Protein backbone atom coordinates (compact mmCIF):
# COMPACT_ATOMS: atom_id res chain seq x y z
CA UNK A 1 0.00 0.00 0.00
CA UNK A 2 1.41 3.34 -0.96
CA UNK A 3 2.29 5.68 1.83
CA UNK A 4 0.02 8.37 0.56
CA UNK A 5 -3.00 6.08 0.45
CA UNK A 6 -2.31 4.89 3.97
CA UNK A 7 -2.19 8.47 5.24
CA UNK A 8 -5.47 9.28 3.53
CA UNK A 9 -7.18 6.25 5.04
CA UNK A 10 -5.91 7.09 8.52
CA UNK A 11 -7.11 10.65 8.20
CA UNK A 12 -10.51 9.34 7.12
CA UNK A 13 -10.75 7.09 10.19
CA UNK A 14 -9.78 9.96 12.50
CA UNK A 15 -12.38 12.22 10.93
CA UNK A 16 -15.06 9.59 11.40
CA UNK A 17 -14.14 9.11 15.08
CA UNK A 18 -14.10 12.85 15.69
CA UNK A 19 -17.64 12.93 14.37
CA UNK A 20 -18.76 10.60 17.20
CA UNK A 21 -19.64 13.48 19.55
CA UNK A 22 -21.93 15.06 16.96
CA UNK A 23 -23.47 11.65 16.31
CA UNK A 24 -24.13 11.02 20.02
CA UNK A 25 -25.71 14.46 20.34
CA UNK A 26 -27.91 13.69 17.33
CA UNK A 27 -28.90 10.32 18.83
CA UNK A 28 -29.81 12.01 22.11
CA UNK A 29 -32.12 14.37 20.24
CA UNK A 30 -33.63 11.57 18.15
CA UNK A 31 -34.37 9.31 21.12
CA UNK A 32 -35.69 12.09 23.36
CA UNK A 33 -38.16 13.04 20.66
CA UNK A 34 -38.96 9.46 19.71
CA UNK A 35 -40.08 8.68 23.27
CA UNK A 36 -41.39 12.15 24.13
CA UNK A 37 -43.44 13.15 21.10
CA UNK A 38 -46.21 10.52 21.59
CA UNK A 39 -47.34 12.51 24.65
CA UNK A 40 -48.55 15.31 22.42
CA UNK A 41 -51.27 13.05 21.05
CA UNK A 42 -52.79 13.28 24.53
CA UNK A 43 -52.07 16.88 25.52
CA UNK A 44 -51.12 19.98 23.57
CA UNK A 45 -47.63 21.42 23.94
CA UNK A 46 -49.10 24.58 25.50
CA UNK A 47 -51.03 22.64 28.14
CA UNK A 48 -47.95 20.56 28.84
CA UNK A 49 -45.59 23.49 29.39
CA UNK A 50 -47.99 25.96 30.99
CA UNK A 51 -50.30 23.50 32.74
CA UNK A 52 -50.19 24.11 36.48
CA UNK A 53 -51.00 20.59 37.61
CA UNK A 54 -48.58 17.69 37.57
CA UNK A 55 -50.61 14.62 38.55
CA UNK A 56 -49.21 12.00 36.19
CA UNK A 57 -50.54 9.01 38.13
CA UNK A 58 -54.13 10.26 38.66
CA UNK A 59 -57.05 9.11 36.58
CA UNK A 60 -57.42 11.08 34.36
CA UNK A 61 -53.79 12.18 34.59
CA UNK A 62 -52.75 15.79 34.18
CA UNK A 63 -49.40 16.55 32.67
CA UNK A 64 -48.60 20.20 33.35
CA UNK A 65 -44.93 20.84 34.04
CA UNK A 66 -45.15 24.56 34.82
CA UNK A 67 -44.51 23.97 38.57
CA UNK A 68 -41.46 21.84 37.67
CA UNK A 69 -40.10 24.54 35.35
CA UNK A 70 -40.64 27.18 38.04
CA UNK A 71 -38.92 24.92 40.57
CA UNK A 72 -35.91 24.50 38.30
CA UNK A 73 -35.67 28.19 37.49
CA UNK A 74 -35.97 29.30 41.12
CA UNK A 75 -33.28 27.01 42.53
CA UNK A 76 -31.02 27.93 39.61
CA UNK A 77 -31.40 31.66 40.19
CA UNK A 78 -30.93 31.41 43.95
CA UNK A 79 -27.90 29.17 43.61
CA UNK A 80 -26.37 31.66 41.19
CA UNK A 81 -26.82 34.49 43.69
CA UNK A 82 -24.36 32.57 45.83
CA UNK A 83 -22.20 30.86 43.22
CA UNK A 84 -21.53 33.81 40.88
CA UNK A 85 -19.88 36.15 43.44
CA UNK A 86 -17.96 33.31 45.08
CA UNK A 87 -16.91 31.78 41.77
CA UNK A 88 -15.80 35.02 40.13
CA UNK A 89 -14.05 36.37 43.23
CA UNK A 90 -12.18 33.10 43.74
CA UNK A 91 -11.07 33.31 40.11
CA UNK A 92 -9.83 36.87 40.74
CA UNK A 93 -8.00 35.58 43.79
CA UNK A 94 -6.31 32.78 41.85
CA UNK A 95 -5.32 34.81 38.83
CA UNK A 96 -4.46 38.19 40.35
CA UNK A 97 -3.88 38.10 44.08
CA UNK A 98 -2.76 34.72 45.39
CA UNK A 99 0.95 34.02 45.81
CA UNK A 100 2.19 31.27 43.45
CA UNK A 101 2.25 28.56 46.13
CA UNK A 102 -1.28 29.24 47.43
CA UNK A 103 -2.57 29.53 43.87
CA UNK A 104 -1.96 25.87 43.03
CA UNK A 105 -3.57 24.76 46.28
CA UNK A 106 -6.72 26.81 45.68
CA UNK A 107 -6.90 25.57 42.10
CA UNK A 108 -6.66 21.96 43.30
CA UNK A 109 -9.34 22.59 45.93
CA UNK A 110 -11.71 23.86 43.26
CA UNK A 111 -10.90 20.90 41.06
CA UNK A 112 -11.65 18.50 43.92
CA UNK A 113 -14.90 20.33 44.67
CA UNK A 114 -15.86 19.72 41.03
CA UNK A 115 -15.03 16.05 41.57
CA UNK A 116 -17.33 15.53 44.56
CA UNK A 117 -20.11 13.19 43.41
CA UNK A 118 -23.47 14.94 43.31
CA UNK A 119 -25.11 12.18 45.35
CA UNK A 120 -22.66 12.85 48.19
CA UNK A 121 -23.50 16.57 48.11
CA UNK A 122 -27.18 15.70 48.09
CA UNK A 123 -26.65 13.38 51.05
CA UNK A 124 -24.77 16.14 52.90
CA UNK A 125 -27.70 18.47 52.23
CA UNK A 126 -30.10 15.90 53.68
CA UNK A 127 -28.23 15.05 56.86
CA UNK A 128 -26.57 18.38 57.69
CA UNK A 129 -28.16 21.39 55.97
CA UNK A 130 -31.77 20.19 56.28
CA UNK A 131 -31.83 19.65 60.07
CA UNK A 132 -29.94 22.94 60.51
CA UNK A 133 -32.49 24.91 58.47
CA UNK A 134 -35.40 23.15 60.13
CA UNK A 135 -34.24 24.03 63.65
CA UNK A 136 -32.95 27.52 62.92
CA UNK A 137 -36.05 28.74 61.13
CA UNK A 138 -38.54 26.42 62.82
CA UNK A 139 -39.77 24.88 59.57
CA UNK A 140 -41.88 21.80 58.88
CA UNK A 141 -39.09 20.54 56.58
CA UNK A 142 -35.52 21.48 55.85
CA UNK A 143 -35.75 20.07 52.35
CA UNK A 144 -36.58 23.24 50.45
CA UNK A 145 -35.48 25.91 47.97
CA UNK A 146 -32.83 27.39 50.27
CA UNK A 147 -31.21 24.02 50.93
CA UNK A 148 -31.19 23.02 47.26
CA UNK A 149 -29.81 26.42 46.23
CA UNK A 150 -26.92 26.24 48.70
CA UNK A 151 -25.91 22.74 47.59
CA UNK A 152 -26.33 23.60 43.90
CA UNK A 153 -24.15 26.67 44.41
CA UNK A 154 -21.38 24.41 45.70
CA UNK A 155 -21.71 22.42 42.48
CA UNK A 156 -21.75 25.46 40.19
CA UNK A 157 -18.80 27.27 41.81
CA UNK A 158 -16.05 25.13 40.21
CA UNK A 159 -17.50 25.65 36.71
CA UNK A 160 -17.81 29.41 37.17
CA UNK A 161 -14.45 29.75 38.87
CA UNK A 162 -12.33 27.76 36.43
CA UNK A 163 -13.79 29.32 33.27
CA UNK A 164 -13.60 32.85 34.74
CA UNK A 165 -10.00 32.20 35.69
CA UNK A 166 -9.13 31.24 32.11
CA UNK A 167 -10.75 34.46 30.92
CA UNK A 168 -8.86 36.60 33.45
CA UNK A 169 -5.62 34.84 32.59
CA UNK A 170 -6.11 35.63 28.90
CA UNK A 171 -6.24 39.40 29.49
CA UNK A 172 -3.09 40.79 27.82
CA UNK A 173 -0.29 41.84 30.11
CA UNK A 174 -0.04 45.23 28.40
CA UNK A 175 -3.43 46.20 29.82
CA UNK A 176 -2.23 45.74 33.37
CA UNK A 177 1.05 47.48 32.71
CA UNK A 178 -0.66 50.43 31.06
CA UNK A 179 -3.03 50.75 34.01
CA UNK A 180 -0.22 50.62 36.59
CA UNK A 181 1.77 53.11 34.54
CA UNK A 182 -1.12 55.55 34.83
CA UNK A 183 -0.90 55.27 38.61
CA UNK A 184 -3.90 53.02 39.21
CA UNK A 185 -3.90 50.82 42.31
CA UNK A 186 -4.12 47.05 41.99
CA UNK A 187 -7.79 47.17 42.96
CA UNK A 188 -8.54 49.82 40.36
CA UNK A 189 -6.69 47.79 37.74
CA UNK A 190 -8.66 44.67 38.57
CA UNK A 191 -12.05 46.37 38.80
CA UNK A 192 -11.74 48.77 35.89
CA UNK A 193 -9.38 47.08 33.46
CA UNK A 194 -8.96 43.34 33.96
CA UNK A 195 -12.51 42.30 34.84
CA UNK A 196 -14.13 44.42 32.08
CA UNK A 197 -11.65 43.01 29.56
CA UNK A 198 -12.51 39.48 30.64
CA UNK A 199 -16.24 40.13 30.86
CA UNK A 200 -17.23 38.00 27.88
CA UNK A 201 -15.38 35.02 29.33
CA UNK A 202 -16.90 35.62 32.76
CA UNK A 203 -20.38 35.79 31.20
CA UNK A 204 -19.71 32.47 29.50
CA UNK A 205 -18.67 31.07 32.88
CA UNK A 206 -21.86 32.28 34.56
CA UNK A 207 -24.09 30.88 31.82
CA UNK A 208 -22.37 27.49 31.92
CA UNK A 209 -22.61 27.52 35.72
CA UNK A 210 -26.36 28.12 35.43
CA UNK A 211 -26.65 25.33 32.87
CA UNK A 212 -24.89 23.05 35.34
CA UNK A 213 -27.28 24.02 38.14
CA UNK A 214 -30.47 23.67 36.10
CA UNK A 215 -29.48 20.24 34.84
CA UNK A 216 -28.29 18.83 38.15
CA UNK A 217 -30.39 15.88 39.18
CA UNK A 218 -29.40 14.30 42.46
CA UNK A 219 -29.35 17.50 44.51
CA UNK A 220 -32.81 18.50 43.33
CA UNK A 221 -33.98 14.98 43.97
CA UNK A 222 -32.60 14.63 47.48
CA UNK A 223 -32.86 18.09 49.04
CA UNK A 224 -35.47 20.16 47.17
CA UNK A 225 -38.35 18.42 48.94
CA UNK A 226 -40.21 17.16 45.90
CA UNK A 227 -43.47 19.14 46.04
CA UNK A 228 -44.79 19.65 42.50
CA UNK A 229 -46.46 22.97 43.30
CA UNK A 230 -45.60 26.57 42.58
CA UNK A 231 -43.72 27.78 45.69
CA UNK A 232 -44.86 30.78 47.72
CA UNK A 233 -41.81 31.28 49.91
CA UNK A 234 -38.12 30.39 49.78
CA UNK A 235 -38.74 27.77 52.47
CA UNK A 236 -41.24 25.88 50.32
CA UNK A 237 -40.38 22.57 48.71
CA UNK A 238 -40.07 22.36 44.95
CA UNK A 239 -39.61 19.62 42.39
CA UNK A 240 -37.12 20.63 39.69
CA UNK A 241 -37.48 18.97 36.26
CA UNK A 242 -34.47 16.62 36.47
CA UNK A 243 -35.56 15.44 39.92
CA UNK A 244 -39.03 14.68 38.63
CA UNK A 245 -37.64 12.62 35.76
CA UNK A 246 -35.26 10.67 37.99
CA UNK A 247 -37.81 10.04 40.74
CA UNK A 248 -40.66 8.92 38.54
CA UNK A 249 -39.01 7.04 35.69
CA UNK A 250 -38.71 3.92 37.80
CA UNK A 251 -42.46 3.83 38.49
CA UNK A 252 -43.77 4.94 35.10
CA UNK A 253 -44.91 1.89 33.11
CA UNK A 254 -43.06 1.56 29.81
CA UNK A 255 -44.93 3.24 26.96
CA UNK A 256 -47.52 4.89 29.24
CA UNK A 257 -48.50 8.55 29.07
CA UNK A 258 -46.45 9.16 32.21
CA UNK A 259 -43.37 7.57 30.56
CA UNK A 260 -43.75 9.78 27.49
CA UNK A 261 -44.38 12.84 29.67
CA UNK A 262 -41.06 12.29 31.45
CA UNK A 263 -39.24 12.11 28.13
CA UNK A 264 -41.06 15.26 27.03
CA UNK A 265 -39.85 16.92 30.26
CA UNK A 266 -36.39 15.77 29.20
CA UNK A 267 -36.87 17.56 25.87
CA UNK A 268 -37.73 20.82 27.67
CA UNK A 269 -34.72 20.43 29.97
CA UNK A 270 -32.44 19.57 27.07
CA UNK A 271 -33.62 22.59 25.08
CA UNK A 272 -33.10 24.93 28.04
CA UNK A 273 -29.51 23.75 28.64
CA UNK A 274 -28.86 23.74 24.88
CA UNK A 275 -29.91 27.39 24.67
CA UNK A 276 -27.60 28.24 27.59
CA UNK A 277 -24.74 26.43 25.87
CA UNK A 278 -25.33 28.01 22.48
CA UNK A 279 -25.40 31.49 24.04
CA UNK A 280 -22.17 30.73 25.91
CA UNK A 281 -20.58 29.35 22.75
CA UNK A 282 -21.69 32.41 20.78
CA UNK A 283 -20.34 34.88 23.34
CA UNK A 284 -16.99 33.15 23.57
CA UNK A 285 -16.65 33.00 19.77
CA UNK A 286 -17.86 36.51 19.09
CA UNK A 287 -15.68 38.20 21.66
CA UNK A 288 -12.72 35.92 21.25
CA UNK A 289 -9.56 37.83 22.02
CA UNK A 290 -7.09 37.38 19.23
CA UNK A 291 -4.64 39.90 20.59
CA UNK A 292 -4.52 43.18 22.45
CA UNK A 293 -5.47 45.01 19.27
CA UNK A 294 -9.00 43.59 19.18
CA UNK A 295 -10.26 45.35 22.25
Amino acid at each position, binding site marked *: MSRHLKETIIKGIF*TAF*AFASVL*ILALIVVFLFREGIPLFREVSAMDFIFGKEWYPTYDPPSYGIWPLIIGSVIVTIFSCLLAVPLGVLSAVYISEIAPASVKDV*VKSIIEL*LAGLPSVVLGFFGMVVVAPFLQETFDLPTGLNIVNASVILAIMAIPTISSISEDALYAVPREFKEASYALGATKYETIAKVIVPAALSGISTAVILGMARAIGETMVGLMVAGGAAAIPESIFDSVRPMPASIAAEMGEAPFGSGHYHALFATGIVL*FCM*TLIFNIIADYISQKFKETGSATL
Partner: protein
Amino acid sequence: MKWRYFRQHMFFAVVRLSALLIAMALGGIIVYIVVNGISVISWDFITLPPTDSMTKGGIMPAILGTLYLTIGAIAVALPLGVVSAIYLTEYAKQGKFIRLIRTGINCLAGVPSVVFGLFGLGFFVVYLHFGSCILSGALTLAALILPTIIGASEEALKAVPQMFREASLALGVSKWQTIYKIILPTALPGILTGSILGIGRAAGETAPIMFTAAAFFTAKLPGSIFDEVMALPYHIYVLATAGTHIEQTRPIQYGTALVLVGLVLGVDIIAIVIRGYMRKKKRW
Protein backbone atom coordinates in the same frame (compact mmCIF):
# COMPACT_ATOMS: atom_id res chain seq x y z
CA MET B 1 -5.18 58.78 48.53
CA LYS B 2 -5.77 56.85 51.71
CA TRP B 3 -9.30 55.97 50.66
CA ARG B 4 -7.99 54.31 47.50
CA TYR B 5 -5.79 51.97 49.50
CA PHE B 6 -8.43 51.35 52.12
CA ARG B 7 -10.81 50.29 49.34
CA GLN B 8 -8.13 48.01 47.95
CA HIS B 9 -7.65 46.34 51.33
CA MET B 10 -11.39 45.86 51.73
CA PHE B 11 -11.65 44.33 48.26
CA PHE B 12 -8.73 41.98 48.83
CA ALA B 13 -10.23 40.89 52.13
CA VAL B 14 -13.53 40.01 50.43
CA VAL B 15 -11.69 38.13 47.66
CA ARG B 16 -9.59 36.14 50.14
CA LEU B 17 -12.68 35.41 52.20
CA SER B 18 -14.51 33.95 49.21
CA ALA B 19 -11.57 31.67 48.40
CA LEU B 20 -11.48 30.64 52.06
CA LEU B 21 -15.22 29.95 52.09
CA ILE B 22 -14.87 27.59 49.13
CA ALA B 23 -11.98 25.77 50.78
CA MET B 24 -14.02 25.49 53.97
CA ALA B 25 -17.00 24.08 52.09
CA LEU B 26 -14.86 21.33 50.60
CA GLY B 27 -13.02 20.71 53.87
CA GLY B 28 -16.25 20.71 55.88
CA ILE B 29 -17.97 18.20 53.64
CA ILE B 30 -14.98 15.85 53.51
CA VAL B 31 -14.33 16.02 57.25
CA TYR B 32 -18.00 15.42 58.00
CA ILE B 33 -18.16 12.36 55.77
CA VAL B 34 -14.88 10.97 57.12
CA VAL B 35 -15.75 11.52 60.78
CA ASN B 36 -19.14 9.87 60.44
CA GLY B 37 -18.12 7.15 58.04
CA ILE B 38 -14.77 5.97 59.35
CA SER B 39 -16.20 3.89 62.20
CA VAL B 40 -18.25 1.85 59.75
CA ILE B 41 -15.36 0.98 57.48
CA SER B 42 -13.96 -2.45 58.12
CA TRP B 43 -12.65 -5.33 56.07
CA ASP B 44 -16.08 -6.95 56.27
CA PHE B 45 -17.79 -3.75 55.11
CA ILE B 46 -15.90 -3.71 51.84
CA THR B 47 -15.81 -7.45 51.21
CA LEU B 48 -19.29 -8.69 52.19
CA PRO B 49 -22.64 -8.28 50.45
CA PRO B 50 -25.54 -6.58 52.28
CA THR B 51 -27.65 -8.76 54.56
CA ASP B 52 -30.87 -8.49 56.59
CA SER B 53 -32.70 -6.41 53.95
CA MET B 54 -29.76 -4.00 53.59
CA THR B 55 -29.54 -3.08 57.28
CA LYS B 56 -26.37 -5.10 57.91
CA GLY B 57 -23.41 -6.47 56.04
CA GLY B 58 -21.15 -4.75 53.53
CA ILE B 59 -21.24 -3.04 50.18
CA MET B 60 -18.93 -5.25 48.12
CA PRO B 61 -21.37 -5.74 45.20
CA ALA B 62 -21.82 -1.96 44.91
CA ILE B 63 -18.05 -1.34 44.87
CA LEU B 64 -17.64 -4.03 42.24
CA GLY B 65 -20.53 -2.66 40.16
CA THR B 66 -19.09 0.86 40.19
CA LEU B 67 -15.70 -0.54 39.11
CA TYR B 68 -17.28 -2.48 36.23
CA LEU B 69 -19.27 0.53 35.03
CA THR B 70 -16.32 2.88 35.28
CA ILE B 71 -13.88 0.54 33.54
CA GLY B 72 -16.42 -0.11 30.79
CA ALA B 73 -17.05 3.61 30.31
CA ILE B 74 -13.37 4.49 30.15
CA ALA B 75 -12.58 1.59 27.79
CA VAL B 76 -15.04 3.05 25.28
CA ALA B 77 -14.55 6.77 25.87
CA LEU B 78 -10.74 6.90 26.09
CA PRO B 79 -9.89 5.65 22.56
CA LEU B 80 -12.78 7.59 21.07
CA GLY B 81 -11.83 10.77 22.91
CA VAL B 82 -8.11 10.55 22.17
CA VAL B 83 -8.69 9.94 18.46
CA SER B 84 -11.15 12.86 18.32
CA ALA B 85 -8.62 15.11 20.01
CA ILE B 86 -5.84 14.01 17.62
CA TYR B 87 -8.09 14.87 14.70
CA LEU B 88 -8.93 18.27 16.16
CA THR B 89 -5.35 19.26 16.95
CA GLU B 90 -3.37 17.55 14.18
CA TYR B 91 -5.58 17.21 11.13
CA ALA B 92 -8.48 19.63 11.20
CA LYS B 93 -8.31 22.92 9.36
CA GLN B 94 -10.44 25.92 10.24
CA GLY B 95 -13.82 25.68 8.57
CA LYS B 96 -17.48 24.79 8.87
CA PHE B 97 -16.88 21.10 9.53
CA ILE B 98 -14.61 21.64 12.50
CA ARG B 99 -16.95 24.33 13.80
CA LEU B 100 -19.74 21.73 13.71
CA ILE B 101 -17.67 19.20 15.62
CA ARG B 102 -16.62 21.76 18.22
CA THR B 103 -20.19 22.92 18.75
CA GLY B 104 -21.22 19.26 19.04
CA ILE B 105 -18.62 18.62 21.75
CA ASN B 106 -19.53 21.80 23.65
CA CYS B 107 -23.23 20.99 23.55
CA LEU B 108 -22.61 17.39 24.59
CA ALA B 109 -20.60 18.65 27.56
CA GLY B 110 -23.61 20.69 28.65
CA VAL B 111 -26.26 17.98 28.40
CA PRO B 112 -27.69 17.30 31.90
CA SER B 113 -26.78 13.92 33.33
CA VAL B 114 -30.41 12.87 33.66
CA VAL B 115 -30.89 13.47 29.94
CA PHE B 116 -28.00 11.08 29.31
CA GLY B 117 -29.98 8.65 31.45
CA LEU B 118 -33.07 9.12 29.29
CA PHE B 119 -30.96 8.68 26.16
CA GLY B 120 -29.43 5.47 27.55
CA LEU B 121 -32.90 4.19 28.42
CA GLY B 122 -34.39 5.05 25.05
CA PHE B 123 -31.45 3.90 22.93
CA PHE B 124 -29.46 1.15 24.67
CA VAL B 125 -32.06 -0.36 27.00
CA VAL B 126 -35.18 -0.18 24.84
CA TYR B 127 -34.21 0.31 21.19
CA LEU B 128 -31.16 -1.96 21.12
CA HIS B 129 -32.79 -4.40 23.60
CA PHE B 130 -29.75 -4.52 25.89
CA GLY B 131 -32.03 -4.17 28.89
CA SER B 132 -30.89 -2.59 32.14
CA CYS B 133 -27.33 -3.89 32.44
CA ILE B 134 -23.63 -3.12 32.77
CA LEU B 135 -23.27 -2.62 29.01
CA SER B 136 -26.06 -0.01 28.79
CA GLY B 137 -24.79 1.84 31.87
CA ALA B 138 -21.15 1.83 30.75
CA LEU B 139 -22.03 3.11 27.26
CA THR B 140 -24.23 5.85 28.73
CA LEU B 141 -21.42 6.92 31.06
CA ALA B 142 -18.96 6.79 28.15
CA ALA B 143 -21.10 9.30 26.23
CA LEU B 144 -21.18 11.48 29.33
CA ILE B 145 -17.41 11.60 29.91
CA LEU B 146 -16.43 11.82 26.23
CA PRO B 147 -16.25 15.66 26.18
CA THR B 148 -14.08 15.65 29.35
CA ILE B 149 -11.63 13.24 27.75
CA ILE B 150 -11.53 15.13 24.45
CA GLY B 151 -10.84 18.38 26.31
CA ALA B 152 -8.05 16.87 28.43
CA SER B 153 -6.43 15.13 25.46
CA GLU B 154 -6.57 18.23 23.32
CA GLU B 155 -4.85 20.26 25.99
CA ALA B 156 -2.11 17.65 26.30
CA LEU B 157 -1.62 17.47 22.53
CA LYS B 158 -1.46 21.24 22.20
CA ALA B 159 1.28 21.32 24.83
CA VAL B 160 3.58 19.26 22.57
CA PRO B 161 5.96 21.86 21.08
CA GLN B 162 5.51 22.60 17.40
CA MET B 163 9.20 21.96 16.75
CA PHE B 164 8.78 18.27 17.63
CA ARG B 165 6.40 17.96 14.70
CA GLU B 166 8.59 20.01 12.40
CA ALA B 167 11.73 18.06 13.25
CA SER B 168 9.96 14.77 12.59
CA LEU B 169 8.44 15.90 9.30
CA ALA B 170 11.79 17.35 8.21
CA LEU B 171 13.31 13.88 8.57
CA GLY B 172 10.84 12.64 5.99
CA VAL B 173 8.59 10.86 8.52
CA SER B 174 4.95 10.69 7.47
CA LYS B 175 2.24 12.48 9.41
CA TRP B 176 0.75 9.33 10.93
CA GLN B 177 4.17 8.09 12.02
CA THR B 178 4.90 11.48 13.54
CA ILE B 179 1.68 11.29 15.52
CA TYR B 180 2.20 7.67 16.54
CA LYS B 181 5.91 7.82 17.40
CA ILE B 182 6.46 11.41 18.53
CA ILE B 183 3.32 13.29 19.48
CA LEU B 184 1.33 10.59 21.28
CA PRO B 185 4.17 9.36 23.53
CA THR B 186 4.99 12.96 24.47
CA ALA B 187 1.37 13.81 25.24
CA LEU B 188 0.40 10.49 26.83
CA PRO B 189 1.01 11.36 30.50
CA GLY B 190 -1.04 14.52 30.08
CA ILE B 191 -3.81 12.63 28.32
CA LEU B 192 -3.93 10.01 31.05
CA THR B 193 -3.99 12.40 34.01
CA GLY B 194 -6.69 14.45 32.32
CA SER B 195 -8.70 11.35 31.64
CA ILE B 196 -8.43 10.20 35.24
CA LEU B 197 -10.58 13.18 36.14
CA GLY B 198 -13.14 11.70 33.73
CA ILE B 199 -12.95 8.41 35.62
CA GLY B 200 -13.90 10.20 38.82
CA ARG B 201 -16.87 11.74 37.08
CA ALA B 202 -18.04 8.37 35.74
CA ALA B 203 -17.72 6.67 39.11
CA GLY B 204 -19.70 9.34 40.95
CA GLU B 205 -22.63 9.87 38.58
CA THR B 206 -26.02 8.55 39.65
CA ALA B 207 -28.68 9.84 37.29
CA PRO B 208 -27.31 8.23 34.08
CA ILE B 209 -27.19 4.76 35.61
CA MET B 210 -30.51 4.89 37.47
CA PHE B 211 -32.53 3.69 34.47
CA THR B 212 -29.77 1.95 32.54
CA ALA B 213 -27.81 -0.30 34.90
CA ALA B 214 -28.33 0.11 38.61
CA ALA B 215 -30.30 -2.24 40.81
CA PHE B 216 -31.25 -1.73 44.46
CA PHE B 217 -30.17 -5.23 45.31
CA THR B 218 -28.82 -8.17 43.34
CA ALA B 219 -28.71 -11.58 44.92
CA LYS B 220 -25.74 -12.67 42.88
CA LEU B 221 -22.70 -10.89 41.57
CA PRO B 222 -23.00 -9.99 37.88
CA GLY B 223 -21.95 -12.86 35.62
CA SER B 224 -21.93 -11.04 32.29
CA ILE B 225 -22.18 -7.53 30.87
CA PHE B 226 -25.90 -8.13 30.37
CA ASP B 227 -26.58 -8.30 34.12
CA GLU B 228 -27.81 -5.51 36.35
CA VAL B 229 -25.43 -4.27 39.02
CA MET B 230 -25.46 -2.43 42.30
CA ALA B 231 -23.44 0.80 42.30
CA LEU B 232 -22.10 3.00 45.11
CA PRO B 233 -23.85 6.29 44.20
CA TYR B 234 -27.18 4.56 43.64
CA HIS B 235 -26.75 2.63 46.89
CA ILE B 236 -26.36 5.90 48.84
CA TYR B 237 -29.34 7.45 47.11
CA VAL B 238 -31.67 4.50 47.69
CA LEU B 239 -30.70 3.93 51.31
CA ALA B 240 -31.00 7.64 52.12
CA THR B 241 -34.34 8.29 50.46
CA ALA B 242 -36.37 5.13 50.02
CA GLY B 243 -37.42 2.18 52.11
CA THR B 244 -38.40 1.73 55.70
CA HIS B 245 -34.98 1.66 57.33
CA ILE B 246 -33.65 5.13 56.53
CA GLU B 247 -32.55 5.92 60.08
CA GLN B 248 -31.40 2.39 60.77
CA THR B 249 -29.12 2.28 57.73
CA ARG B 250 -27.63 5.73 58.37
CA PRO B 251 -24.21 4.31 59.35
CA ILE B 252 -24.12 2.28 56.12
CA GLN B 253 -24.99 5.43 54.18
CA TYR B 254 -22.09 7.31 55.77
CA GLY B 255 -19.76 4.40 55.14
CA THR B 256 -20.81 4.09 51.50
CA ALA B 257 -20.44 7.86 51.01
CA LEU B 258 -16.95 7.68 52.50
CA VAL B 259 -15.95 4.81 50.21
CA LEU B 260 -17.28 6.69 47.17
CA VAL B 261 -15.66 10.00 48.12
CA GLY B 262 -12.41 8.20 48.93
CA LEU B 263 -12.46 6.43 45.59
CA VAL B 264 -13.31 9.49 43.48
CA LEU B 265 -11.19 12.09 45.26
CA GLY B 266 -8.34 9.60 45.73
CA VAL B 267 -8.17 9.10 41.99
CA ASP B 268 -8.46 12.87 41.40
CA ILE B 269 -5.69 13.66 43.88
CA ILE B 270 -3.38 11.12 42.23
CA ALA B 271 -4.02 12.80 38.87
CA ILE B 272 -3.42 16.29 40.26
CA VAL B 273 -0.17 15.26 41.99
CA ILE B 274 1.21 13.47 38.91
CA ARG B 275 0.31 16.45 36.74
CA GLY B 276 2.08 18.87 39.07
CA TYR B 277 5.14 16.62 39.12
CA MET B 278 5.19 16.41 35.33
CA ARG B 279 4.90 20.15 34.88
CA LYS B 280 7.95 20.65 37.07
CA LYS B 281 9.92 17.99 35.25
CA LYS B 282 9.13 19.25 31.77
CA ARG B 283 12.29 20.04 29.82
CA TRP B 284 10.97 22.07 26.91
